[in-house]
């Protein structure tokens, strides 16, 4: 019987496997034997059991919101014949729903812009890490805009949106895609929005948003300028702000 004895240290660990029914019968018997004779371990066993029950009973279980599952596994909309034929072709490869998901997350952002988005997000994170959010700190666009003159070979639109709840905090020079970039920062409650503006030769592109490494990113091209907005702000708010910028610009 000596060989079957457990010391308290071992027991206080094993008691968890015992409670979770993860021990084999021999080990479970040894733990039970020790608990029967050791008041201290028995008390700890009792507390651990109480904790288990308490978490099961009181910790909320967060079920997936219906809108989320509906998004991912959307029932297919009423089908026309063409769609039916199309599905026949593709059904073996993609379900329509999975395709919808893939389309939503892939195609919305053409690959060519992906490096820019990634860089913008990295720059956004860096700007928050150091004390280098702004080179010129001002909520006055007549201070910020002239500051860029001579530093850039294009003229970024600079406006203050305090009245709409997005005050201009300032501006700085950044460097994205091997180009000097204007970075404006705006506030929204406690969130910071970085607006990157850089010149491009390409034609206009409509507004699109996506998530990159947990940040919301909105992108568009207009008047030979690329706009990239990055923030931890909610997607809808960031998009609303983007509309403001688009119209103000």
């Amino acid at each position: 019987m000596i060989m079957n004895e457990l010391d308290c240290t071992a027991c206080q660990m094993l008691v968890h496997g015992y409670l979770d029914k993860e021990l084999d019968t021999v080990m479970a018997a040894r733990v039970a034997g020790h608990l029967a004779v050791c008041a201290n371990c028995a008390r700890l066993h009792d507390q651990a059991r109480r904790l288990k029950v308490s978490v099961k009973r009181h910790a909320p279980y967060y079920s997936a919101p219906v809108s989320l599952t509906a998004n991912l596994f959307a029932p297919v909309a009423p089908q026309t014949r063409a769609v039916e034929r199309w599905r026949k072709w593709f059904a073996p490869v993609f379900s329509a729903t999975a395709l919808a998901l893939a389309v939503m997350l892939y195609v919305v952002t053409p690959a060519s812009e992906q490096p820019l988005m990634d860089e913008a997000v990295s720059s956004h994170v860096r700007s928050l890490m150091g004390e280098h959010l702004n080179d010129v700190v001002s909520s006055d666009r007549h201070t910020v805009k002239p500051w860029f003159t001579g530093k850039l070979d294009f003229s970024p639109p600079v406006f203050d949106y305090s009245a709409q709840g997005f005050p201009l905090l300032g501006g700085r020079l950044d460097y994205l895609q091997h180009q000097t970039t204007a970075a404006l920062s705006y506030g929204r409650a406690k969130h910071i929005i970085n607006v990157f503006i850089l010149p491009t030769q390409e034609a206009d592109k409509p507004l699109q948003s996506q998530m990159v490494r947990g940040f919301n990113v909105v992108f568009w091209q207009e008047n030979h300028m690329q706009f990239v907005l990055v923030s931890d702000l909610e997607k809808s708010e960031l998009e609303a702000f983007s509309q403001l910028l688009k119209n103000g610009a």
Partner: protein
Amino acid sequence: MKRFEDLFAPHMDAAYNLARWLTGNDSAARDVVQESALRAFRFLHRFTDGNAKAWFLTIVRNESYTWLKASAGHHWVAIGDELPEDDAALSHGQTPELLAIHTENAMLVQQALCALPPIFREVIILKELEDMPYKDIALVADIPIGTVMSRLARARAMLKLELLKLHDHE
């Protein structure tokens, strides 16, 4: 095609629950689950067979940590593995009456769980709320199966301390 839906649709609650507990907010958890579903879809060919739930939750867990790190920025959140060992916590056994009272207080239980570092919070969620066996927890939490019991032992000891601490502050 259907395979993706058949495999993962049944585990959306578990996915969202884990992401919600790890990130601590609804919109992040939604994003994490969406991103995880996309990844699962892209890497479906790597899933031969076995435990779809554990496989999917592994992705959800990784995405949750990616989010935690990104959102922390310079306010780096301790993931938990760098905490010093605290053996006192394991044998700390005072005030059993207070503990008994606090384990019945849903709000305190939730608060105490949220105060745990993620690597300890997650094993408790996977064990008590998902009722997963140790071998699946090992997969999801990316630790050897032999470590699951000690991780849970520490997690429960810390949870107990948090519950008692909360009382002290009332």
